[in-house]
């Protein structure tokens, strides 16, 4: 199948609507919006330009006051600044994630979500319980995941178990693809029933101590993020950051920074422009020790979507199933990226910091 440009571009039916970076001042009394990506919700972006919130005010202010992640399942006027503009863009929920540099809270990453009928996906916050030997679900936003959510609040994971426990154990983002069949994702049966395919867990830490694990759960049809990457640094230096895991549309595993991909189900490797944007965002996030957002990046040149095997950094695809073509035999409507015309609407790089440098950076793009 040949790529059809008319199928594409920005739409209001992405679950993830926007991401913002808020800078916290030195005495931690106020947060200032310094960057944001809004995709199709341009009006929302304009309405928020130059916002400053004091501690306790709005979502970023709530994170500032409480110094923990805050997830809002409903956006009312008191809890979320500019709730009317958000509602006009279809935004129904948001999460605020604190980023600490040593003792100091330096930034808040805010991500907003839509909840149109038919959307399937979720964001969860898992925190320590029972003397911190287990992680339990403390807050979640679910779209089309009522049954999955109903039972999840009774589930707890010890360190090392399940996606939250694994992210906790390694202290870095963890990616699981093919959730429905995954041995590592312990709620796989529920995930399969709900149509979830990808889980991404990010530890939120303060001075090496876990505050929470944030999970992004994506379906194939309406993913929260179409692209996830985990970059880790072995020695805390930004220069040492290496991509250790990534996906695109299907299940894939990046084996090196050169993006040699050997797939199990499909492969995910972006075009050069997208990968360059991600790499730049990762480095910047590491250097500034802050979240970084990016948007409107071309994913043209994206090959290897679908069932195939990428054998080199040139991203040559050996198709093993389906029609031959630009997409390596993929069916774009199932493959996600293909159906969107190869443009990234938004994304962010979120650093996991430790006292002596950068432990890891998690990347999500939609």
């Amino acid at each position, binding site marked *: 199948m040949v790529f059809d440009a008319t199928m594409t571009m920005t739409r209001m039916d992405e679950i993830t609507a926007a991401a913002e970076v808020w800078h916290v001042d030195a005495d931690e009394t106020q947060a200032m919006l310094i960057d944001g990506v809004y995709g199709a919700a341009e009006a929302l972006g304009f309405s928020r330009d130059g916002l400053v919130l004091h501690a306790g005010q709005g979502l970023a202010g709530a994170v500032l006051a409480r110094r923990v992640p805050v997830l809002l399942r409903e956006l009312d006027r008191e809890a979320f600044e500019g709730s009317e503009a958000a509602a006009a863009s279809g935004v129904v929920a948001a999460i605020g994630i604190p980023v600490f540099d040593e003792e100091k809270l330096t930034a808040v990453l805010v991500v907003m979500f839509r909840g149109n009928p038919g959307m399937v996906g979720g964001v969860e916050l898992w925190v320590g319980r029972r*003397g911190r030997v287990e992680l339990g679900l403390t807050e979640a936003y679910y779209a089309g995941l009522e049954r999955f959510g109903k039972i999840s609040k009774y589930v707890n994971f010890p360190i*090392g178990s399940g996606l939250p426990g694994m992210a906790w154990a390694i202290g870095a983002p963890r990616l699981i693809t093919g959730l429905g069949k995954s041995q590592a994702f312990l709620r796989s049966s529920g995930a399969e029933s709900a149509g979830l395919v990808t889980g991404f867990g990010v530890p939120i830490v303060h001075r090496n101590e876990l505050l929470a694990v944030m999970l992004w759960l994506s379906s194939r049809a309406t993913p929260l993020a179409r692209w996830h990457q985990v970059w880790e640094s072995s020695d805390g230096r930004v220069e040492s950051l290496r991509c250790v895991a990534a996906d695109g549309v299907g299940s894939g595993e990046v084996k090196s920074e050169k993006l040699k991909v050997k797939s199990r189900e499909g492969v995910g490797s972006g075009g050069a422009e997208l990968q360059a944007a991600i790499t730049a965002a990762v480095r910047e996030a590491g250097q500034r020790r802050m979240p970084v957002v990016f948007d409107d990046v071309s994913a043209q040149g994206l090959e290897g979507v679908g069932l195939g095997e990428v054998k080199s950094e040139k991203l040559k695809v050996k198709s093993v199933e389906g029609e031959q073509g630009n997409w390596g035999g993929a069916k774009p409507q199932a493959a996600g990226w293909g159906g969107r015309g190869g443009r990234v609407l938004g994304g962010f790089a979120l650093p996991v910091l430790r006292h002596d440098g950068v432990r890891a950076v998690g990347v999500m793009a939609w």
Partner: protein
Amino acid sequence: MDRYVEIVNLVKAYPNPVGEAIRVVDGFNLNIRKGEVVSVIGHSGCGKSTVLTMVAGLNAITSGDVVVAGSVISGAGPDRAVVFQSPCLLPWLTSFGNVMLGVKRVYPHATRQERKEIVEYYLSLVGLADAMNKYPREMSGGMQQRVGIARAIALKPKMLLLDEPFGRLDSLTRMDLQDVIMGILNREKITTMVITHDVDEAVYMSDRICMMTNGPRARVGQVLDIPFDRPRDRRAVLEHELYYDLRGCLIDFLEKFDKHKHVGKGDGREGMSGDDDVRGDGKGVELAGAMDMMLGLPADDNAEMSLKISDMATGVVGTAEVLSLAEVSDGV
């Protein structure tokens, strides 16, 4: 008290034939609140019973700690009463006599009449008011297990450890005894760990269910909160809107590990076959092994076992006595 019982990084390793330590249980962590009932569920051989026997003090801990009410355990004690699959009653004693064994130990200063009343109270609690003078051979398996339960509760333990206590009983008797134990726990609020294979039993009886991964290197894989109020009514539990979702969650977990039992996948720590009964190279039978031998016998064989016990390590006898599983007289 969120941490009335703390099981911290519990490890059990046995040497293999070439002397390498094989970790049957590897880093088991669990905190239990005072009065909470926690079931441990997992496939046969995953190490559930190994964990229980370590908590009971019947099986040496390779590393890690078990803390009960603020004290680190160092061996068996009447503060942790155990009910095994087999009741292990002493065949030469009546049900009254079997329960009295423990009562004498934990009420050393009580008068004869007070002890008698205590024994009668606990036997009545398990529905044996009319069978106090019966010998084990005169009782059904269910009745014998009731005596075993009364004997354990009479120790006034801080923690009750139930190792598949209904495993040998028919369905109806099993349900009866589940209700007997539930009634006692509702009244006495004893912190309890139950080892079971039975998903429905776990959901009905527990406040939380701890699911273990397959051994070797078994650990806690997932813990499920059971949000049903107490006291529980079986019919109300079965009709609860969450019942089948909770049950499904347990079955999903068990199926996941069953499917992969012999195929190492995932994070590399799970999926291998294992066996509770791994005991290394057989050099030196551990206390738990000896206890298992003794406790694994049908009730009718206990008389024969009582003759063999003199051949066992004195520690075994001592432990059995502490748990009221044996009677030791001068000269024995």
